[in-house]
């Protein structure tokens, strides 16, 4: 049996990608790019799930990854619908200028 790459390496990579996504959500002003950064974070979580599933010899990690993908599909459909509706009513989607809900 080939010695597999340690799980800690995969977890560190997952954390790195997650933080890339979190940084993007915090700094980008285009909501579509923010949505893509959220996808990046979900992907990172998936990588962690699958790596830990392999670590413990359990299919549960891969199952959770599949459920996360299904939820991400629903989330991106709703998010893009909100962005399209926003663009129709406001003619802009810059999140700094869409602040009617701000106190």
């Amino acid at each position, binding site marked *: 049996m080939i010695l597999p790459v340690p799980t800690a390496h995969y977890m560190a990579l997952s*954390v790195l990608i997650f933080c890339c996504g979190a940084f993007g959500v915090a700094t980008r002003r285009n909501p579509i790019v923010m949505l893509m950064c959220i996808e990046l974070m979900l992907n990172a979580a998936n990588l962690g799930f699958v790596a830990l599933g392999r670590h413990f010899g*359990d299919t549960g990690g891969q199952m959770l990854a599949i459920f996360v993908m299904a939820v991400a599909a629903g989330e991106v459909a*709703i998010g893009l619908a909100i962005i399209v509706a926003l663009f129709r009513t406001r003619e802009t989607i810059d999140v700094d200028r869409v602040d009617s809900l701000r106190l």
Partner: protein
Amino acid sequence: MGSAIIFWILATIAVVTAAMTVLNRNPVRGALMLVAHMLTLAVMYLTLSAQFVAAVQVIVYAGAIMVLVLFTIMLLNLGVTGGGIRSRGAGFVLAVIGALTLTLAMVGGSVWRHGLAPMKATAESLERGGTAQAIGYALYDPELPWLFPFEVISLLLLSAIVGALVLTRRRSE
């Protein structure tokens, strides 16, 4: 040794494409970088012997979701003007500090501080752990907790379809 080399190559590509997704001013280029990132992760799932998840990753993420995102970017036709990165002010500094702290806290707290339990994977689970057959048996096994979430997911996707239709409907009667 070979698997380690493959891991480092894939990890480099994954981090670079993720960073370019975040930093690219042009949303279309960012989306294409995200597609490359997702394909890289699919190959990484193959190295983790999760074949079915790799296939679903290519079909659902790189296929369906990214087509939807690219379609919306081109439909709204915002070009580069849709807002770049907030590169000035306290918000940017806070975001950098926050991301670094998050990285250190998660790596340090989860892996280095406590360490992982010893690996329980067997040669059998590495060999056949992620095939469509293994996933299917586990998904529909009444002894395992995955059947009910699977049914609930269908309800969630249905409500997402209805929600997207309601949100994008034109209100002009």
